[in-house]
């Protein structure tokens, strides 16, 4: 079906602001294919059902809206953790600021500097394509075509130090597109950390293949620049008996759309996707998750919590699709918001689609205010009202933070949240 004129114009306007990167040669076919898909299908539009709660305008317009750079005080998040640090400034790799990419048990290369023949050829754009059914994700296809760089990470053993991507935002008009491919080989273990606002506008795709009996932990903190906009996609395909856990903390950001598309292909695998978001004012945060169960006896969990105030908006669209083959599936999904005032709103669309008969799936979504009884109890013990509210806010988010296995990482995120809460008061 041909695009409507207005949609055709929108996609061509966006494409005209981009250059198709020259390399690497092994990715050329995937890039061309993705470009054709974008041309044919267009970009997200306001009337699209999948974008009902989130206006895509700022993510698809040709140039990014400038975003003021926040000068963060205090030490960098995760700085207390022994990690392999890789720095991107406004989406551009910074070799000076980055650690040596060589590390035990893992091979790390840059998309822009990889050789002619590459293992990533079988994954780059491939998991993204799989994730386009049954719902299309045009901004991910756009990313596959135009990503200027990214990392190709292949873990072959138990990788001791987490690989930490640090995304610095320094220019008010930056528009960054990065595409990462992660392969965790059979029995291998890898933790990937991502922090920072990255750019005025950031589009990132991470394709992850987790092989049998492998473990992959992914923790992100999206940075506190209030005016930044981001669309992220994680496409993961899981083998048998493996573990995949992804957590995202978002504090501020005018526009965030985080999509996670998880395919449980093997048997006995575990996939957890979780997030905590706190926002104030013209903050719009959207978690869109699609989990497909193919293998038998797999467990999936989605735990999302949002704290909203001063007219902030939170969105959750979460789906669990259980195919006929996926007997003994254990699927769980919860999305909750804490509304600190009457102006903020939380929009949730939980969905279950089940074709197997022997499964256990549950989902729930709630929206509520601070518990006044708990508030009074704390105050009656001498805790000031604003501190009591912070304590209860952190308590609300704790259930999502608890999804992170590594205590040190979790504590760092709690510190971030505490900073956010205290900054609100100044």
């Amino acid at each position, binding site marked *: 079906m041909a695009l409507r004129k207005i949609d055709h114009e929108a996609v061509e306007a966006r494409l005209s602001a981009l250059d198709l990167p020259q390399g690497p040669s092994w990715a050329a076919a995937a890039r061309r294919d993705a470009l054709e898909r974008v041309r044919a299908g267009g970009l997200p539009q306001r009337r699209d059902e999948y974008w009902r709660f989130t206006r895509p305008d700022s993510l698809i317009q040709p140039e990014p809206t400038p975003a003021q750079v926040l000068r963060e005080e205090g030490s960098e998040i995760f700085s207390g953790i022994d990690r392999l640090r890789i720095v991107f400034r406004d989406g551009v790799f910074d070799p000076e600021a980055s650690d040596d990419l060589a590390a035990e048990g893992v091979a790390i290369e840059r998309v822009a500097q990889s050789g002619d023949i590459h293992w990533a050829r079988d994954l780059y754009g491939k998991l993204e394509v799989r994730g386009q059914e049954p719902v299309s994700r045009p901004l991910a296809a756009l990313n596959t075509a135009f990503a200027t760089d990214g990392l190709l990470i292949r873990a072959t053993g138990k990788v001791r130090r987490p690989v930490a991507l640090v995304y610095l935002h320094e220019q008010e008009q930056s528009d960054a597109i990065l595409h990462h491919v992660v392969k965790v080989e059979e029995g291998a273990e890898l933790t990937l950390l991502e922090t920072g606002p990255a750019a005025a506008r950031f589009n990132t795709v991470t394709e992850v293949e987790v092989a049998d009996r492998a473990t992959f932990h992914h923790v992100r903190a999206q940075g506190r620049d209030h005016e930044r906009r981001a669309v992220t996609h994680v496409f993961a395909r899981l083998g048998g008996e493996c573990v995949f856990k992804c957590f995202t903390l978002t504090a501020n950001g005018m526009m965030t759309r985080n999509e996670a598309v998880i395919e449980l292909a093997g048997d006995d695998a575990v996939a957890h996707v979780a997030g905590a978001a706190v926002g104030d004012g013209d903050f719009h945060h959207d978690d869109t998750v699609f989990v497909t169960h193919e293998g038998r006896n797999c467990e999936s969990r989605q735990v999302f919590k949002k704290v909203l105030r001063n007219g902030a908006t939170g969105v959750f669209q979460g789906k669990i699709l259980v195919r006929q083959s996926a007997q003994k599936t254990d699927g769980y999904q919860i999305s909750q918001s804490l509304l600190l005032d009457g102006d903020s709103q939380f929009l949730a669309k939980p969905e279950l689609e089940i074709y197997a008969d022997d499964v256990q799936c549950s989902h729930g979504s709630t929206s509520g205010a601070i*518990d*006044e*009884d*708990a508030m*009074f*109890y*704390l*105050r*009656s*013990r*001498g*805790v*000031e*009202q604003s*501190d009591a509210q912070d*304590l*209860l806010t*952190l*308590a*609300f*988010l*704790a*259930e999502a933070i608890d999804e992170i296995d590594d205590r040190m990482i979790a504590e760092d995120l709690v510190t971030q949240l505490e900073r956010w809460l205290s900054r609100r008061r100044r």
Partner: protein
Amino acid sequence: MLDIKNLHVKLEEEDKRILKGVDLHVDAGKVHAIMGPNGSGKSTLAYVLSGRDGYEITEGAVALDGEDVLDMEPEERAAAGLFLAFQYPIEIPGVGNMTFLRTALNAQRKARGEAEVSAGEFLKLIREKAKTLQIDPEMLKRPVNVGFSGGEKKRNEILQMAVLEPRMCVLDETDSGLDVDAMKLVADGVNALRDAGRSFLVITHYQRLLNHIQPDVVHIMADGRIVKTGGPELALEVENNGYADILAEVA
């Protein structure tokens, strides 16, 4: 210590009068008991003293050592030394008992211009207090009151009181739902805190707690008023004859 004068209270949301002129004076170092049938307004009095929302004070005054209490926020009352042991302690999922108590203690100390207690000092303090109340240290790590039995919740209230060391303690039916052993523990906890500078207002429906915590003065409350005041023998009278006789006598 505590001075309640002609206190009239109605519900904020509806036109229901609950306290209809309560007068009460508690001297420093004394234990007063308030007894009365269900619905007579005992918990309302306790909540109004501690500053809970939802009530409107239409008349009267409350002073703590001469300072107007009704003007203060709940946390200011706490810092001034007022403490309420809740009839129904609140569960707070996600907030650890230790964090809760240390935050409370340091908030009060800060409000009074005192130095904060370090994590180490606090740990020592709470371990010692928990031990005398036979509170399992594991319980301290759990979220506030979540999954606690009725008795554990009440003991936790007394633990908070022991740590915060208030000068005016209001105990609302701390005995309800406790078996004899648990009640004894709670009473011991209270008695250990008795001091010339500290007063207690012990609200109870039954006399049995007063066997363990000897009151100096006993008040009977009915329909929003103190209708009779006497010595410990008044509690025994309630125990033996119920409220009916007393209420008939004052009617």
